[in-house]
């Protein structure tokens, strides 16, 4: 289990982006982190990625606290950021190879893995093209494949459906739910669009840097109603 305990973050000592946030991400399951703009989702994501340091609080993987000076646990996590982070000048294949080598994989390890991911994400038609020439949906598939290159136990995605059309959003949702099953990943999916979720998903609703709900839901309508109620109430 991936646990976030009492995490707080204040920007420049003035703006409280996170206020004692606590929740957990379960393995082999999709945990949806819902919240309106400014809820603190991206700040949380930056902390998880080690890009900023929390003011207080801790993160633990399977009960062991994550020492932020030790990069090793990052090898158990795959990240998909909200903004595209692929090298537009290089091909999809080169992007995957680069990510695999940064993860410390050898050629014997990453060559079959890349092939496996190309097939799983149906990227055969565009993998040799420069990443800058790909469509939004193709780029997202490439980024998710890249995040899975080292078979992480946890996959964290920050609003990955931003900029995608409805078809690609539905497809992305299916891919993420399949991943939790097939790769055995615990998926943390930051979004502000509740209709991308499925009833079995674990849900955390954030507002103004706080956890205002954690649990499951019976139907999308119920979740939507609860979400709007909680956000308005806070």
């Amino acid at each position, binding site marked *: 289990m991936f646990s976030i305990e009492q995490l707080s973050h204040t920007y420049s000592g003035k703006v409280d982006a996170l206020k004692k946030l606590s929740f957990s991400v379960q393995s082999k399951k999709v945990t949806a982190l819902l919240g309106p703009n400014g809820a603190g989702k991206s700040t949380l994501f930056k902390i998880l990625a080690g890009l900023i340091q929390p003011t207080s609080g801790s993160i633990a993987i399977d009960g062991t606290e994550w020492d932020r000076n030790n990069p090793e646990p990052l090898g158990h996590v795959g990240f998909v950021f909200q903004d595209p982070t692929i090298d537009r000048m290089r091909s999809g294949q080169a992007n995957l190879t680069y990510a695999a080598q*940064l993860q410390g994989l050898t050629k014997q390890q990453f060559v079959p893995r890349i092939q496996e991911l190309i097939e799983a994400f149906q990227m055969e038609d565009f993998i040799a093209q420069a990443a800058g020439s790909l469509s939004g949906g193709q780029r997202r598939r490439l980024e998710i494949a890249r995040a899975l290159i080292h078979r992480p136990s946890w996959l964290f995605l920050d609003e990955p459906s931003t900029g995608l059309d409805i078809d690609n959003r539905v497809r992305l949702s299916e891919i993420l739910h399949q991943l939790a099953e097939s790769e055995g990943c615990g998926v943390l999916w930051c979004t502000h669009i509740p209709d991308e979720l499925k009833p079995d998903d674990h849900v955390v609703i954030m507002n103004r840097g706080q956890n205002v709900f954690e649990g499951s839901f019976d139907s999308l309508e119920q979740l939507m109603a609860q979400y709007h109620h909680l956000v308005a109430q806070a």
Partner: protein
Amino acid sequence: MKRNLISPGIAIFHREFDRFIKQKARCISAIVRPLLWLVVFAAGFRSVLGIAIQPPYETYITYDLYVTPGLIGMIALFNGMQSSLSMVYDRETGSMKLLMTAPISRRLLLIYKLLATASISTLQAYIFIGIALLYGVNLPWDGLITGLPAIFISSYFIGLVGLILASQIKELENFAGIMNFVIFPAFFLSSALYPLWQIRDTSEIVYQLAIFNPFTYVVESIRFGLHDTTITESTFGLILASLLLSLVVHRLFTYGQTR
């Protein structure tokens, strides 16, 4: 999965070389820029300036031979700054996040990045030296070997300075200004174009600025390196300065402190 620490280095080297080769204008201008100085500027001054005998030279030398180490330093200076510029670009385009979430220490990542930058600078320097030899610059052949450590260490040092600048710059647009305020003063206020004693004859202030300019020591390190002295006081000073700056750079790129 079992990880090795060499693979990230290969990834960074491959990307840096790939990027350098794909940026054809950068590739060509890296060589053409110093060549222009050598062929046009130095040709004009060749007969005007007399360079007195001073170490490491054992006889009177022509101006093109004098200016060559400064132009090699210029190559390292431009490439080091452009490499740092690419880091600002990576931060703007998001590619930096991939580096920062890699499960290896940032210290090692920065060392790989600097080694890749220094390797590209050294490669450019040797292409330039090859053309300079063909052009008739009378460099000693054994200087090609003894000069290698000085060129590489100088390039590494300049890369470090570039990284410190890059860490302080939020937007790509600002970097062009910084480059103009760093590259040109560093080059002109050094011993790249004229010997320090000649600068002192003209202006004590400019001489003092040149003495405090680290690029002067880069140029002198390369100059002595190309003339049989592998490690000089200047080179040793650059190594020490690199070690100190490495601590600063590591602090700037520590976990949780990257913008």
